[in-house]
């Protein structure tokens, strides 16, 4: 009996090992080196040198499951759209004739920081990723950035706004998002104009990103003369916001600034709507920027958020020309149309962030005229660029290397259009506004 069991166990172990070896990596349909195309016979007898084709492997984890799933998937969609476009158009041709094409390797990080560290190590050591893109969210990126930095790998941090990772002496991280500490500044400026006497409740997810945003905006609120009457963090997995909404009501706040990510943000918005506590204005991080947010129905009305990119306020070549900064890549309309065709829904800023990560890497390789990581890193350090997503320039000081210093955010709000559908409009800054702010938001 023992012998049979031992045999079965051995066969199972061998089968598992064999299957593991054969198992494809998630989303790596093009990770095999691309075969160089056969050249046409030349008109002369001189040997024609065929272009050398190299495949650059980009590694990242995606949250296919877990709390960051919604935004992470959009970020990955944006990135894959960029990669497919570049590869389909023949790749990047360097001055020596080398054609650079891209492949990616990715794994599900389950929205789990421990898995992120393990998987980024694997991406670097086993999959030999040449460059890295960050996972979505500051918390996960913080975990990944340690591994990237330890291995000297360039990592474009696409979905991570937290400032702290750039203030620890890192030299390989390059941030695309506006830093978290500046997330709410446009909103506060707008409030100062609309209602200088507003009293503020800061209610936020107790995670790295949201806490960083709140800590960043507090001095700015004080400088603008706003009184903060309530400051409260909540756990990421909170679903019952009843007690918190009651606290907000009891605090006398007229404006709520806070939130965190998609799951908690939608739950908080719904609780606020159900209890109708008379807030004049509500700003939540991240969740209202997603196109799924109107699934909340009327609870979405009037909720505002900061957005890294909106099609209605997309950046243009004219804007770049006026600033005397180089333009690169497609227009916002071209990007949005391509995404709509490929994925069937309008792009959010998370999609734009994923696409922009690829675009910035592409430009850095072009500028470096090489895929050598050190040359690409130097090109990123020197970058001062405008793309549809906005300005791209990285802090190169020792104190905050890689921090994004050129990108600006807009404030978007869910309002109803003429036929009563919920639409996201731009309400600040005033120069890109597409609608007046809904203030105060009418009671349900």
């Amino acid at each position, binding site marked *: 009996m023992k012998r049979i069991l031992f045999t079965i166990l051995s066969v199972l172990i061998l089968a598992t090992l064999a299957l593991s070896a054969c198992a494809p990596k998630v989303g790596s349909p093009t990770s095999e080196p691309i075969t160089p195309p056969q050249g046409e016979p030349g008109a002369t007898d001189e040997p024609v040198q065929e272009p050398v084709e190299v495949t650059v492997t980009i590694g990242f984890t995606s949250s296919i499951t877990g*709390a960051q*799933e*919604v935004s992470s998937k959009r970020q990955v969609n944006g990135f894959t759209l960029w990669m497919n476009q570049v590869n389909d158009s023949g790749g990047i041709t360097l001055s020596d004739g080398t054609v650079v094409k891209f492949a990616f390797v990715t794994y599900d990080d389950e929205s789990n920081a421990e898995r992120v560290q393990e998987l980024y190590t694997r991406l670097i050591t086993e999959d030999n990723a040449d460059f890295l893109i960050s996972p979505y969210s500051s918390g996960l990126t913080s975990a990944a950035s340690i591994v990237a930095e330890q291995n000297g790998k360039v990592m474009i941090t696409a979905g991570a706004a937290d400032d702290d990772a750039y203030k620890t002496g890192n030299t390989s991280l390059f941030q695309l998002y506006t830093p978290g500490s500046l997330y709410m500044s446009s909103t506060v400026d707008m409030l100062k104009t609309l209602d200088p006497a507003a009293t503020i409740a800061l209610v936020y997810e107790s995670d790295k990103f949201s806490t960083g945003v709140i800590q960043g905006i507090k001095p700015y609120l004080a400088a603008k003369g706003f009184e903060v009457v309530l400051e409260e*963090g909540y756990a990421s997995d909170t679903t019952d916001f009843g007690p*918190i909404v*009651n606290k907000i009501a009891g605090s006398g706040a007229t404006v709520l600034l806070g939130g965190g990510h998609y799951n908690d943000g939608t*739950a908080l918005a719904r609780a606020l709507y159900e209890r109708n506590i008379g807030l004049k204005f509500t700003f939540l991080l991240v969740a209202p920027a997603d196109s799924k947010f109107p699934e909340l129905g009327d609870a979405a009305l009037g909720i505002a958020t900061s957005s890294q990119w909106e099609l209605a306020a997309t950046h243009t070549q004219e804007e770049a020309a006026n600033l005397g900064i180089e333009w690169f890549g497609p227009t916002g309309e071209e990007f949005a149309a391509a995404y709509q065709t490929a994925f069937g829904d309008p792009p959010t800023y998370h999609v734009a962030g994923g696409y922009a990560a690829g675009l910035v890497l592409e430009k850095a390789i072009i500028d470096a005229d090489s895929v050598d990581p050190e040359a690409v890193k130097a090109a990123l350090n020197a970058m001062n660029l405008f793309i549809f997503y906005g300005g791209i320039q990285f802090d190169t000081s020792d104190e905050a290397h890689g921090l994004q210093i050129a990108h600006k955010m807009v404030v978007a709000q869910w309002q109803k259009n003429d036929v009563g559908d919920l639409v996201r409009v731009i309400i600040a800054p005033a120069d890109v506004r597409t609608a007046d702010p809904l203030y105060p938001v009418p009671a349900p």
Partner: protein
Amino acid sequence: MQQFNLLLTSLPDGILLGFVFGLAAMGLALIWGVMNVINLSHGSVIALGMFGTFILFIRMGINPYLGLVLIAILGLLLGVLIYFIAVNRVINAPHLSSLLATFSVNMIIIGIGTAVFTTSPYNVDFNMGSFRLGSTTILGTRLIAALIAILFTGGLYLFLYKTRPGKFIRAVTNNRAAAELMGVPSTRILALSFGLGTMLAAVSGALIATFFPFSILSGGGYELKSFVIGVLGGLGNPLGALLGGLILGVLEGIIPAFLETSWVPVIEFSLFVVILLVRPTGIFGAKQ
């Protein structure tokens, strides 16, 4: 004074929610009480109940409260199925076996649920209005959920004490061997008990979906609450579980009045440990 007002405002919310938590915990307590099985698939069944409401209301337009009948029946059948597939063969084995068996079922449900629904959060945009009671707002969905939870508790009580299968369940709970000697078909009764416990989990999930967003992973949190409630009320004591649910609901209502909400689980689980140490049979006693 402000905190006292906040206390009064949050207390009714906590009580109403406590009934629904209690209903979920009753399912766990019933299964433990009858067959000494800690059902680790409890949370995923709660999540399935949530998706039941979503599918019936959002996709098919059926009122969530009418849909409860169907969810209850499906929950019962699912429980019987789980029992015969995963639990029946290990019912007399050490506790670890049934623990692992139900954990496997949990992972299977979550795996299939993730493939079908992903782990994205879902919302059931269903509103039953609200009304003011003093300084507090009572939400219609929570009030009705609490009433339904009380109805189910009453129904379970009547079933256990007034019907023949219910008496069989109590007999098997007290002494399975003796019940079998008296001609009680213990396997069928155990399957029925597991089905009832699963049904209560599914119904509580269906009710929770009417006021909170959820995903296929949401059940885990409610399963943990069910454990705390089970220990508070007395393991294996379904009616104690309802009272335990009320205690937990009240705690969740009043703690945020004095502390940040992130302290709620700290205090809940500290209480869990204290009760285990001081009164392991629970406040209201164990099996009845």
